[in-house]
């Protein structure tokens, strides 16, 4: 019992980077923009979030700064793909490298080489009154920092927007058939732009959360491939926000499990446990491709006056 509670209590915050980044990916993906720069944006978000928090002394400001920086990269991606119609994958990879480089450079410029690495305070827990007193559930779900609650609220909000509003219906249609959407007066460029900007911003916040939740330290490589996993997660969840939540729980669970396996020194190398999310994604793609559907126009640019694409 205590073991399970502890596991789940650790899993919930571990879900946050996956959730925020994957919902951001899903958001732009449903409009047809396939962002592949998550890993870079998360590293950049982590660096900027850490540095701004360190200098300003406020984690909140750090989180917003990370959002803004990553959103700026998203704007570049949106502009390059909707206006210049450059290949989404190529631009995304370029942005990945640019973000990675920018993160390393910023840290070196601001902090330099130090004997003792600088620290920022980790995020405080805010137990939700009443709810957090429910036995078991209260401890697992309602005794975390504010970003945890925000991540779940954002997931719910994106789900509600996509499936419960008319604008959401219009929005999703862009990723399925932008020409149909355009012919009905839906602004394809605008939808792709804002969703890519906001989506990328969320990826940045996902990165910034990492130094703020566990150690208060920033280390190179602390994102540790989560950005790439997020792409797998978007596919695993079939680009649907509610299923992404379930997928994030699975990924985070594996992460916690790997960590515990490492600590407990069980015979299985923890790397094997870390591989499970990838294996699971592959299996889902192979065996449940009908369920794991993706937007029909994902990754493809739209040109209204193009005479070739029907």
């Amino acid at each position, binding site marked *: 019992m205590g073991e399970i509670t502890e596991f789940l209590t650790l899993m919930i915050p571990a879900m946050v980077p996956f959730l925020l980044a994957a919902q951001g990916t899903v958001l732009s993906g449903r409009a047809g923009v396939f962002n592949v720069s998550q890993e870079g944006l998360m590293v950049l978000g982590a660096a900027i979030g850490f540095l701004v928090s360190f200098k300003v002394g406020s984690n909140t400001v750090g989180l917003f700064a990370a959002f803004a920086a990553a959103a700026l990269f998203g704007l570049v991606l949106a502009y390059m793909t909707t206006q210049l119609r450059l290949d989404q994958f190529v631009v995304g990879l370029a942005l990945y490298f640019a973000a990675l480089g920018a993160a390393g450079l910023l840290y070196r410029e601001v902090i330099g080489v130090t004997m003792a690495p600088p620290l920022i305070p980790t995020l405080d827990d805010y137990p939700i009154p009443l709810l957090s007193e429910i036995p078991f559930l209260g401890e697992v779900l309602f005794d975390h920092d504010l970003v945890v609650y925000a991540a779940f609220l954002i997931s719910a909000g994106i789900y509600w927007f996509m499936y*419960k509003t*008319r*604008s959401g*219906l219009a929005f999703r249609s862009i990723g*399925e058939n932008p020409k149909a*959407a*355009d*012919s*009905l007066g839906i602004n394809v460029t605008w939808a792709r732009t804002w969703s890519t900007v906001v989506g990328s911003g969320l990826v940045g916040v996902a990165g910034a959360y990492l130094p703020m939740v566990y150690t208060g330290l920033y280390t190179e490589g602390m994102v540790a491939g989560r950005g790439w996993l997020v792409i797998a997660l978007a596919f695993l969840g079939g680009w649907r926000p509610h299923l992404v939540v379930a997928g994030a729980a699975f990924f985070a669970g594996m992460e916690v499990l790997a960590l515990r396996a490492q600590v407990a020194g069980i015979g299985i190398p923890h790397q094997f446990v870390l591989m499970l999310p990838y294996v699971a994604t592959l299996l889902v793609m192979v065996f449940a491709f009908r369920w794991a559907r993706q937007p*029909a126009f994902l990754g493809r640019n739209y040109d209204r006056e193009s005479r070739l694409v029907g």
Partner: protein
Amino acid sequence: MTTQQPPRLEMRRVVKTFGPVVALDSVDLVVARNEVHGLLGGNGAGKTTLMNVLYGLYRPNSGEVLLDGEPVTVGSPRDAIDAGVGMVHQTFLQVDNYTVTENIVLGTDVSGALRLDLDEARKRIRELSTRFGLSVDPDAVVEDLPVGVRQRVEILKALYRGARLLILDEPTTNLTPQEVDDLFGSMRAMVDDGMSVVLITHKIRETLGVCDRMTVMRDGRSVETIERSDTDADHLADVMVGGTTGPGELIDAAALGAVDAEEVEVTVSSVRDAVGVSVQGLVVNNDQGHELVPGFDLEIREGEIVGIAGVAGNGQVELAEALAGVRAVRAGSVEVGGRSMCGRPASAWLDHGVAYVPEDRHRDGILPTASITENLVLGSQRSPGVRRHGLLDWGAAKQRAVEAIEQFSIRANGPATPAGDLSGGNIQRVILARAFARRPRMLILHNPTRGLDLGSTRFVYDQVRVATDAGCAILLLSEDLDEVIAMSDRVIALFKGSRAGEWQKGTVDAYEVGRSMTGLGEARV
């Protein structure tokens, strides 16, 4: 009062260029109130381009648009919708996994942006579909619907937005004769209700059947606007091609719908006794692994044209691809010229003289960014004519391309022109040139004249005749029923991958075929 009313639509001196190509060369068009106005012409004529300008999809270089006498600027489809213009495109612009209602309300009613209450919309859709005779189930998912119903959804989309002027781009392409009649009935109901309808078409017969007036376009210009009562099929055909039609082209004219197919006399039959192609118990799956052709038998004699009539999605693509050797055959046998072909690689089929003209010529027929020369060499790259020292002899290939351009009248700036830059008709000529370069024993034609202008259509038919004279067995799959009936020695109706009826030339009744195509006819195999 009525004489004072301005026309519903007036387009003045509209010019549109795509790079160096002048698609619209100062076009004028006047559509009156309460009329069905035909916009007639071949595919390069600019009819669709003109309507795309009106609908805000293309930005014109210059020109004026007036709706009900008011000048309007249409910068996007949103402007067009707001001005009361609706357009049904040739390829349906629908979100496949949305329901009918969701597709129709998409992008409407900004005030209700924060909720998704579709009950009101459903009621409106039911009301509209009753009023105009466009029956649909509002809750069906569109990807499950047959083409005819999906078209009604497209029309309802425009009506739902309160269109005063509805543009229909080649709406009859995939419809059975019954569905065409229903559609024309709905168009009449709309016009009686105060709307105006523009019917884009290249079919003379349907223009005469439903239009009050018609404007003929040719080479990006509007040639003439004619009252229905002042014209007939011959006259329209003359205006369309801009010249006179010779007497030997009656079959072509029938295929274009200028005269009834039944009136065409079979003059010369080139059918020989020898069997060219023999297919037995053919089973083929579609891309999703469903069995779409559950066992098909077919015999085509040398020089014979067998036409397959069917609504799109009844196994035509699977059948054509299996017989062309590019799709795996699950069971059954295919013999071409007495040799069993199943299980051999596509190159063996090619070498044995199987030629395939696919339905989607852009996607499956050419490499759009490769030159005409390269496209023509494709498939015969190993043949001795274009090989030197084990490498491709580009000089010889280019020479071939130059000859093909000459012989097949391909309009291009030269053999180095990328195939994707050509018009649909010229792309089809490239594909035919490639097919005929191998002296085919079997030729599979899938919608070979779809979207082609009159000249190119004629050209395709002429080439088909040359091939049958040479003893080639031809399988013609077409969604244009008139074409199938006019061209084929035998017509087979295809429904759910099976033969739903078969008729010899001269005994074909279009309505009967139409019933069989939709599974309603009695099979007489």
